[in-house]
């Protein structure tokens, strides 16, 4: 409890700095990542994160110091090289983007590990801490590190906000952007540069493997809440910052806990929750509407069976047993049972011993569906000049969707037809 209080009060200037630095890293990565996400280049970010390692090691081997500027410069250069090679492999060979990304990611990382272990084994005392690039340890950042990274993070945000409109166009419609005279190539290079920079600094917080999450995960989660780009980017940035805050909190309270994985953990939880719960686009909402639609279609189809049987025997009130019903429409037995039970509950059919009888209310509903079906067949036949034997399947699908307004319009367009193309009578209410 005491620790929570200490953490939240920000009384320790060191904590204040680390938390703020991590939050800026999380937010700026999310911001840049949103564009990578929209351009479907999420995994390229992963490759860049791995490709950075040899650059860091080489820059240390050449300069002999861990100056953050030099390390970032090395990281930046090898990240860009990786990016160029991915494009070159895709352009000049038959390999696709997945293989190109996999090759660059693993080979550059292997080379980085080779150099890193080489440096470590060769007993250079100054190297201690280079391996934090692997897993990231925000709490181990020095004051200078934090100033540099936070400065770059802020710079990234400013650049993105300045070129916001242009980036938006390039991400959604590069052809159009070219036509109206935007320097598309230049803007793409700028966006890639920002991505490489964001990765180079973000790695400090979460490490090589999890860097991809800092870019992709917030944007993916935000996408489920809105269709507006500005709002989506804002939400992604907030997700990034909140997760960074929570991750630093955990590793402050339990010092043996690594910051990076916890940041990613919180990010993933937020995003998976968004994927599941978000209104309209979320999975649970979608599954629910899917199920509801399926049920609606099922009972409407059953009502239609009653109507057709009644029409044939000219007796709508007659009871039918389950075998008779099943013979007229190929559906599984449990579908019949479930659908009939539902109809019973809605008072659209009633039951007499083993026979099912459609109620007055059910008959009205059945008439409505058959009417929509036949009106649509009529429409296809008259307006689209389709042959009468080509219209049934289409009507079978659309009868469940047509709204009362559309129904009225159809009736008016077709001037209240009496019979459908198959010469069956169209049932009107009264």
């Amino acid at each position, binding site marked *: 409890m005491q620790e929570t209080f200490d953490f939240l009060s920000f009384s320790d200037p060191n904590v204040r700095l680390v938390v703020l630095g991590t939050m800026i890293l999380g937010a700026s990565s999310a911001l840049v990542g949103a564009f990578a996400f929209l351009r479907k280049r999420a995994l390229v970010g992963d490759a860049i994160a791995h490709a950075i390692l040899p650059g860091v090691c080489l820059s240390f081997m050449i300069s002999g110091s861990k100056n953050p500027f030099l390390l970032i410069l090395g990281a930046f250069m090898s990240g860009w090289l990786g990016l160029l090679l991915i494009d070159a492999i895709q352009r000049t060979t038959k390999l696709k983007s997945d293989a190109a990304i996999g090759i660059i990611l693993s080979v550059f990382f292997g080379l980085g590990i080779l150099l890193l272990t080489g440096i470590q084994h060769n007993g250079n005392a100054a190297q201690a801490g280079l391996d934090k690039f692997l897993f990231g340890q925000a709490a181990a950042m020095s004051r200078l590190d934090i100033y540099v990274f936070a400065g770059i993070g802020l710079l990234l945000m400013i650049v993105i906000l300045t070129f916001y409109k242009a980036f938006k166009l390039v991400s959604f419609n590069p052809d159009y952007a070219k036509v109206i005279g935007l320097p598309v190539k230049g803007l793409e290079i700028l966006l890639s540069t920002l991505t490489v920079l964001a990765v180079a600094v973000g790695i400090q917080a979460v490490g090589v493997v999890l860097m991809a999450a800092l870019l992709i995960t917030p944007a*993916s989660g935000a996408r489920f809440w809105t269709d507006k780009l500005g709002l989506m980017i804002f939400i992604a940035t907030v997700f990034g910052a909140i997760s960074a805050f929570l991750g630093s909190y955990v590793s402050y309270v339990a010092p043996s806990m690594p910051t990076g*994985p916890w940041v990613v953990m919180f990010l993933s939880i937020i995003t998976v929750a968004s994927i599941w719960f978000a209104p309209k686009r979320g999975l649970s909402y979608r599954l629910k509407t899917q199920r509801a639609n399926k049920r609606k279609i099922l009972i409407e189809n059953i009502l239609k069976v009653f109507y057709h049987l009644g029409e044939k025997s000219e007796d709508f009130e007659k009871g039918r047993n389950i075998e008779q019903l099943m013979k007229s429409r190929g559906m599984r037995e449990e579908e019949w049972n479930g659908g009939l039970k539902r109809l019973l509950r809605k008072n659209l059919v009633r039951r007499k011993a083993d026979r099912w009888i459609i109620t007055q209310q059910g008959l009205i509903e059945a008439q409505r569906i058959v009417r929509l079906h036949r009106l649509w067949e009529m429409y296809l036949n008259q307006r689209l000049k389709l042959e009468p034997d080509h219209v049934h399947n289409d009507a079978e699908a659309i009868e469940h969707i047509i709204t009362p307004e559309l129904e009225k319009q159809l009736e008016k367009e077709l001037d209240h037809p009496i019979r459908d193309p198959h010469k069956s009578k169209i049932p009107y209410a009264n």
Partner: protein
Amino acid sequence: MDAFWIILTGTLIACSCALVGCFLVLRKMAMVGDAISHAVLPGIVLAYLVSGSRGSLPMLIGAACLGILTTVLIELFYKKAKLQIDASIGITFTWLFAIGVILISVFAEQIDLDQDCVLYGEIAYVPLDLWLTSTGLNLGPQAVWIGGGMLLFILLFIRIGYKGLFITSFNEDFAKALGIGVAFWHYALMGSVSITTVISFESVGAILVVAFLVVPASAAYLLTHDLKKMLLISCAIAVLSALGGYYLAAWINGSIAGAMATVCGLLFLFAWAFSGLKSRKNVKLMINSTR
């Protein structure tokens, strides 16, 4: 003798990975292999916690479960939630990997797995872990036996399933029309990727498994149009990488697994240059013949 055992282990692992990797590359699923190789981590840790030892069987089961879970999660995000495929892959494997690292930190006392080992393995210690029978007979390092068993398993899998794998990799619709279980071969392949990954994990680490899965297969793909030749060439490249990697590592005094991946990359570079020259020659030939 140590050098021999290390190179042999590396070769066995690299060949197994390269063989299943060929099918991943052909199916354009290289990044799914990458995702699985990261995502098996929590499975390994949990198996470790449950069984209390580094026994191979619990780890295999744990990793295979996680491998399947990974593909299921990716499909769920992609097909059901309509999230784009690259983001679905990215979210899934980073999340599972993060869970794995957190589990390692939480149970640090019980688990003898450190974070570095997770990333780049410890193939250098392979010769130390010998398989001694109860009579004291020294049968050589355990890793060699396990790696050999894995290669045998993969060879058998490809031998038996060649037709199914072949058709589903090249033409899914045709396979469906023939009544071949596309989903079955998909999950069978993913299962073998998980098994290969987890066995290789201890020796070469998560990311270098990816190198062996993707790079030899891609290089071989550039050099031939024939699947059987592609499988052979990828194995040859895998063997060369293991061999060259060992001596490169000895020279630099660095990680053997890292060096093996580096050599792999160099060999890919050669294959790339060679295929580029060949296609240029072909273009010239075509131009000449049209004249």
